[in-house]
C-alpha cells in the first residue's frame, strides 16, 4: 500500500469514526445520566437521518450549504424527541432493574424502526450533503469537501459538548446528577430535569450523526442496530462511562473498519471487530480501560 493510499484510508476512517464518536458520546451521556444502556441509540441516529431528509425541502437545492444550515434544526428537533424519549422509555422504569431499561429502549427502538419503515419505505435514501461541491485534490490525495465538513462538524460538536459539560453550570449539574442523583437533589439540583436534558443532548448528538452519515452512507430504517453496536463497542473499548474514552474508541473503530475493509473486505472487517471484542472481554472482563466508578459493597 502506498503512503498516499494509506493516508486516503486514514482520512476516510477518521471521517467515519468522527460520526461514530457523536453516537458513542450520546450513548455515554445517557449511560451516565440514567445508569443504563440506551439500546435505541442506533435507531435515533437513523431517525436523525430521516428527519434531515424530511426537513431538507425547507432549505431547497439552491444554497451551497444545505446540511450545515439544517444541522441546528435537526439537532433541535431530535433534542425534543430525546426529552420525549426520556419520559416515555426511561422514567417509567427508572426505579426498576437495569434490564428493564434495556428492554424498554429496545421496544422504543423497534417503534422508531417500524415507524420509519412505514413512513419512508425500506429502501435506502440519501440525505442532504453538508456542503455541495466536489472537493479538492492535494497532490494525488483527493479529499471530498463532504468528508472535511463531517470531521469539522463532529469536532466542533464534540468539543462543544465537552465544554458544555465541563465549564457551564448546567453541565456541572448534569454531571453531578449522573454521579449521585440523591446527593445532587439534596443540594437543590432537580435530577429529573437534568436527566431529561442529558437525554435531549445525547439524542441531539445522535441526530447530528444521522445527518452527517446520511449523505455518504445513505439511511434506511434497519440501520439502527449496527450504529448502536458500534457505539456500544466504542464505549467498551474506551472505558465504561468515560466521555473521552468513547470518542477515542469510536475513532479507533472507524479507522479499523475502513483499514481492514480496504485490505480485505467489509465483511471481514465486521467479523474481526466482533471477534476482537469477544477476545477483549475474555481477557479484560471489566473493559479495556478502567471504569469510571466501582461499586461499593
Amino acid at each position, binding site marked *: 500500500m502506498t503512503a498516499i493510499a494509506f493516508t486516503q484510508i486514514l482520512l476516510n476512517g477518521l471521517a467515519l469514526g468522527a460520526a461514530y464518536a457523536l453516537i458513542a458520546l450520546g450513548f455515554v451521556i445517557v449511560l451516565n445520566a440514567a445508569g443504563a*444502556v440506551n439500546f435505541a441509540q442506533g435507531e435515533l441516529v437513523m431517525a436523525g437521518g430521516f428527519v434531515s431528509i424530511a426537513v431538507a425541502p425547507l432549505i431547497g437545492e439552491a444554497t451551497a450549504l444545505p446540511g450545515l444550515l439544517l444541522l441546528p434544526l435537526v439537532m433541535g428537533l431530535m433534542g425534543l424527541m430525546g426529552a420525549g424519549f426520556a419520559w*416515555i*422509555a426511561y422514567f*417509567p*422504569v427508572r426505579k*426498576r*432493574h*437495569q*434490564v*428493564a431499561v*434495556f*428492554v*424498554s429502549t*429496545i*421496544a*422504543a*427502538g*423497534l*417503534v422508531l*424502526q*417500524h*415507524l420509519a*419503515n*412505514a413512513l419512508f419505505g425500506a429502501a435506502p435514501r440519501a440525505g442532504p450533503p453538508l456542503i455541495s461541491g466536489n472537493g479538492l485534490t492535494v497532490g494525488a490525495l483527493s479529499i471530498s469537501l463532504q468528508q472535511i465538513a463531517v470531521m469539522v462538524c463532529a469536532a466542533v460538536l464534540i468539543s462543544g459538548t465537552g465544554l458544555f459539560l465541563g465549564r457551564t453550570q448546567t453541565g456541572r449539574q448534569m454531571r453531578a446528577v449522573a454521579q449521585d442523583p440523591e446527593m445532587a437533589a439534596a443540594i437543590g439540583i432537580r435530577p429529573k430535569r437534568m436527566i431529561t436534558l442529558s437525554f435531549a443532548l445525547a439524542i441531539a448528538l445522535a441526530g447530528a450523526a444521522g445527518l452527517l452519515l446520511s449523505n455518504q452512507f445513505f439511511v434506511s430504517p434497519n440501520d439502527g*442496530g449496527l450504529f448502536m*453496536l458500534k457505539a*456500544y*463497542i466504542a464505549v*467498551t473499548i474506551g472505558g*465504561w462511562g468515560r466521555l473521552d474514552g468513547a470518542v477515542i474508541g469510536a475513532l479507533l473503530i472507524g479507522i479499523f473498519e475502513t483499514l481492514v475493509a480496504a485490505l480485505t473486505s467489509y*465483511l471481514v472487517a*465486521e*467479523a474481526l471487530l*466482533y*471477534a476482537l*471484542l*469477544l477476545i477483549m*472481554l*475474555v481477557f479484560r*472482563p*471489566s*473493559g479495556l480501560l478502567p471504569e469510571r466508578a466501582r461499586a461499593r*459493597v
Partner: protein
Amino acid sequence: MSDPRSRLALGVAAIALALYALFFAGDYALHVLTRAGIYAIAAIGYQLIFGRLGALSLAQGCFFGLGAYAAGLGALELGLGFPLTLAAGVLLPSLLAALIAIPVLRLASHYFALATLGIAQLALLVATNWTDVTGGANGLYGVPPIETGTLSFGHGLPLTLLVWACVGLALTVSHRMTAGQRGLKVETLREAPLAAAALGIDGSAIRFRFFVASAALGGLAGALQAHAVGVVSPDVLQFHVLVLILAMTVIGGRASPLGAVLGALLLVHLPEWFRDFADYYLVVYGAALLAAIIFLPRGLAGLFGKSEMPPVETADAEAPRDPAPHTLSVETVSKRFGGVTALDSVSLTLAPGEILGLIGPNGSGKTTLVNLLSGIDKPDGGRILLGDADITGKPPEYIARSGLCRSFQHPQIAPDLTVLESVEAVTAEGESAAARVTEAGLSDRANENAGTLPPAALKHLEIARALAAGASVLALDEPAAGMNEVERANLAALLKRLADAGHGILLIDHAMDFLLPLADRVICLSAGRVVAEGTPADVARDPAAINAYFGESPL
C-alpha cells in the same frame, strides 16, 4: 405451578387448546398454532436465563437459528432421520452455550448483553457468508418433514400435536429447574447475588445450567421450525427473532412458564388479527412491548396473581441443630486498592461462643476485613483459617459452606420472597427453615414479603439466613445501624443467645453503648491497622482508640 389453583388453570387451558386444535382449527389456524408452539418453547427457554436469572442474553435468537441450521444440515447433508435431527438441533446450540458460558457469564450485565450480541452477529455473518455449507443468503431448501416409520408429522394436526408435546416437555424441564427450593435459590441469586454467594449458593453452577438449558430449548424450537417450514435461511439468526422471543417473555410474564406460552400464542396470533394495519402493525407491536414493560412488570401472568405458597406454621418448629464450632484466625492479612493500603497486617482470633467487637472510624478497613473474610475480595497477604481449614482467597460460596457467613451494611434480600422462603432458600436438606425463623425472632413475620420488612427485621432476616446456611461464625456489618432502643435490645439478646449456643460473632458497630456491653473483647482499627485490643473497658480508655475516633485533640 405446584399449588392447586395453577394446576387447575393449566389443565383447563391445555384442554381448551386441545379442543380448539382438534375440532375448530382449520389448516391455516393449525399452522399458526404450530408456530406459536415453536416460539413458546424458545420463550420458555429464554425465561430461564432472562426471566429467572435476570441476565439479558441477546443470543437466544442465535441459539434458535443454530438449532434450525443443525437440524437442516443434519437432514440434508448427513441424512439423519427425525429424532436425530432434533437432537442435533438441541446439541449444537447447547455446545456453543457451554463453550462460551465460562468467559461470558462472569461479565457484568452490560458486557454480558454485548458479548452475547457479538456472538449472535458473528453467527449471522458466518451463516450468510459460508455459502458452501449454509447455502449463504439463500439458505437451505427442502428440509424434509418429520416422519418416523409409518407415522408422519409433516403438517396439520399431527405436527401441531408433536410441537405442543414438545411444549409440554419444555414446561417440565423448566418446572424441574425452578420448583421448590431450587426456585428460591435462583430468586435469591437474581435479586441479591452477593448475599447468595455469601450464603453458599453456587451461582456459577446455576448460571451455567440455566444458560445451557435456555440454549437447548432455543435449539429445539429452531429444529422444529426447520422441519415445519422446510427452509432455513439466515433470517432465523436475525436480531428480530431475539426481539420476538424477548417480547413474548416480557409480555407473557418474566417468571411464569405459562405466561411465556401465553405470550407466544398472543404474539404469533396478533399479526393475523391486525392484518388491516399492514406496516403499522409492527409499530403497534413495539408499542405493546413498551407498554408491557412499563405497565405490566410481571407480564400477563401477573394479572392472575402470584401463586402463593401455603402459609407455614412456625410455632411447633423443632430446635435447630448447631453447627460444629470453629475458631476463626486471621493472620497478618493485608489488602491494597491501587496505592491505598486498606488493611495492613491485621491479625485476630475469634473463638466459638465469643463476641468480638470491631470498631474504628469510617474508612479504617472494617468492611474491607469482612469482605476478605467472606471471600468477596482477595487478600494481598496473610492467611485466614476457619478451624484448621485455610480459607484464604477461596470463593464466597466455599467460605459460606465452610461455616462463615456475613451480613451486609445494606441488607441484600430478594424482596418478593417471604421471610420463610428467603430462609428456606439456603436451608440444608432435612433442616427446618421455620425453626431458624423462630430462632431469629421473626416467627410473627414469617409469611411477609422480605421487601416490606422494616430495617430492623431485615437485619434479623440476614442473621436467620446465615444460621440456616450453617454458619458457625457470623460476621455482622453494622447490624444495629438505624435501630431504636427496643430493636437494639432485641438484637443484643439474639446475639447473646447465639454466642451462648457456640457461635463466634464478629460484630462491627459504631454505637458504643450497644457494642461495648455486648462484646467479650474489642479490636480497634485505624487506617487499616489494629491500634487497640482488649476488654471493652480497656479499649474504651485506650488513648490510641480515642485518638483514632476523634483525631488529635484540637485543644
